[in-house]
């Protein structure tokens, strides 16, 4: 197990990066400008790539260097670029009708983190995990999951919803780097590619939304009820 035999420097480095991504998730939650979401997401992806690389270095998993490179390339460059292109075409720069004010969303997000912490500690206790890094990774993973769902729930713009989904996936990916660095390479690469296809599909769908519904806000998607 990687997480049982870490030297203190590596442990604090991992913790720092995990917490930095969590803070970036809060940045996304607390802003209503789509630009900020995008930059926060790209930065978060780069941090995850750095995390992969440092896990590769300290844990002795050379194949993770490849994952780090692909993460930086796909999540850090290609995905933000695709989303930036959609954003420019749509001419939407901010969230207009969020259900929850960003400030209230931050509070709810914080509650989510507390909940995730309780669950992670509970699991950690029952497994007798010596390492705090694993518990922290689990906490961050679950918190980013909850924050992603919160973003999906309180935001109406199509682009915010895509970014909410990507935060969900980032959380899992981040946790996976620390908890299961030995996960087969094939799976990780396929999941990365899969993400790319998802965003491409979203891009096409958004065009349809604009052409056929005339809006990219889910406020206007209310024809189908009952």
């Amino acid at each position, binding site marked *: 197990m990687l997480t049982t035999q870490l030297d203190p420097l590596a442990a604090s480095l991992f913790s720092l990066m995990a917490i930095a991504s969590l803070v970036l998730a809060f940045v996304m939650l607390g802003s209503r400008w789509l630009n900020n979401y995008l930059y926060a997401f790209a930065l978060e992806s780069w941090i995850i790539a750095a995390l992969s690389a440092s896990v590769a270095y300290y844990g002795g998993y050379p194949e993770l260097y490849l994952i780090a490179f692909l993460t930086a390339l796909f999540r850090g460059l290609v995905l933000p670029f695709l989303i930036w292109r959609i954003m420019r075409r749509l001419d939407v720069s901010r969230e207009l009708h969020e259900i929850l004010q960003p400030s209230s969303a931050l509070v709810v997000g914080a509650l989510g983190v507390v909940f995730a912490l309780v669950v992670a500690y509970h699991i950690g206790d029952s497994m007798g995990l010596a390492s705090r890094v694993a518990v922290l990774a689990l906490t961050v993973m679950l918190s980013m999951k909850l924050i992603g769902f919160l973003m999906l729930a309180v935001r109406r713009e199509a682009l915010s919803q895509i970014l909410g989904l990507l935060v969900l996936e980032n959380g899992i990916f981040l946790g996976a780097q620390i908890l299961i660095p030995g996960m087969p390479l094939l799976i990780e690469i396929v999941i990365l590619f899969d993400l790319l296809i998802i965003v491409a599909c979203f891009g096409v769908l958004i065009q349809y939304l604009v052409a056929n519904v005339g809006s990219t806000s889910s406020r206007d*998607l209310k024809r189908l009820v009952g």
Partner: protein
Amino acid sequence: MAGALLLTLMLAPAVAALGCIVFRQARIAEWLNLGAASVSFAAAIPLTMLSAGGPRHYWANYIVVDMLGAWVALCGAIVYLLASIYAVGYMRLLGEDEKLWGFYALFALFALTIFACVVMNDAGLYWIAVELTTLVSTFLVGFERAAESIEAAWKYIIIVSAGISLALLGTVLFYWSGSFVLGPTYQMTWDVLREAAPRMNPQLVTLSFLLVLVGYGTKVGLAPMHTWLPDAHSESPAPISAMLSGALLNAAMLGIVRYLAIVDSAGVGPLTRTTLVAFGIASLLVGTLFIVRQNGVKRLMAYSSVEHMGVIALGFGFGGPLGVIGALYHMLNHSLNKSLMFFGAGNIMRSLGSKDISSLRGVWIRFPVQGALWLAGAVAITGAPPFGLFLSELVILRAGLTQSFAWAVYITLVLLIVIFVGFLNHFRVMYFEPEEKQSAAPVSAWCVAPMWLSLIPLLILGLWWPHAIWDHLTAIARVLSGAGS
């Protein structure tokens, strides 16, 4: 032999999709897709029979043909064939010939991704295959490009992707709990997980399973994660509705069943099964409430799918040989019957030009033959004898009575009766209320033939449960309970 059959099953739709893209001709695409569906169906039958000889592994263990998977593949292949026949007639009515090649290419790819789900032996790859089904079918749901279909497609992809990311989290946590037993790197096949499960941490396994259940449950359409289902099923073209309902939902249910076998062998207690049963009851309840007060004819069928997925979830949740046998038989019957219902609904909607029950009148007088077929299907889908669903529901309920889930059985019985009354009341209105002046366009034989092809087997399966099928399903139940492989 089984390898060649598997290859045929997968290659046929792949080749058809490629052919559609190359030729870009509506008529050629139609026939290519129909041919692929027939070939897949012809391969799925012997594959199911061969699978009884034990699981076979291919491609470094990434692919498996086992009895459970082959059975779900067979259900999928049946629906694919029926829907392909139906699509020939139905899609011509839309009058969008120049776009049809794209439709058929996606259609064949959709079938391919469903077959891919079924044979994946690695929990991670299974997740990816399920995700791919979503991506392909989104564009099929939105094919008609009306504001409603795009809305349905958008809801579908957002809700299902978000739901299924929970399944990914569950998969990662399963891998993590396995890594304490098997070391940091191992191949996450169903069998490996199952053998390691007794030594995993029970709390972590429970958490992982619940995440997986909610994740794949979203895709199956279990309430309360079902919200995408009525929209997607009602707004897509009728052949796609049939594929979504009869093939896709089963393929997602397969994941839940495989994980259920893993947590069973981990011995984590009754919480997991109780949760599955609770989801089943919730789906039945939601299905009932929305069926009774429904005005969209295809939405009626969609909520009926929620209901039947609930029944199947109950079967697997009750467990035991009878529960599994009933649930698997119910999968087959539901695939046949729901195809019939969507075909009928599509025909009537196209001919009378409305999708509201309140404006469809005089169905029987206008369409004596297909009206009768559709009505027989409606009787069957509510679980009345002499059709297959009656038998499978009876077996599932019987399975519940023998164990600690009697409360669920009584609730189910009440809800099924309410559904019977509510569902057939809509048909009474459509068939026997005095008709208004409406012009009815005729539908082609392509649209009626598959209704016969699904009703007749359904009737046979209701009158006579073949021994071969019973033995096959018993063997699957034995493997799932861990008694032998």
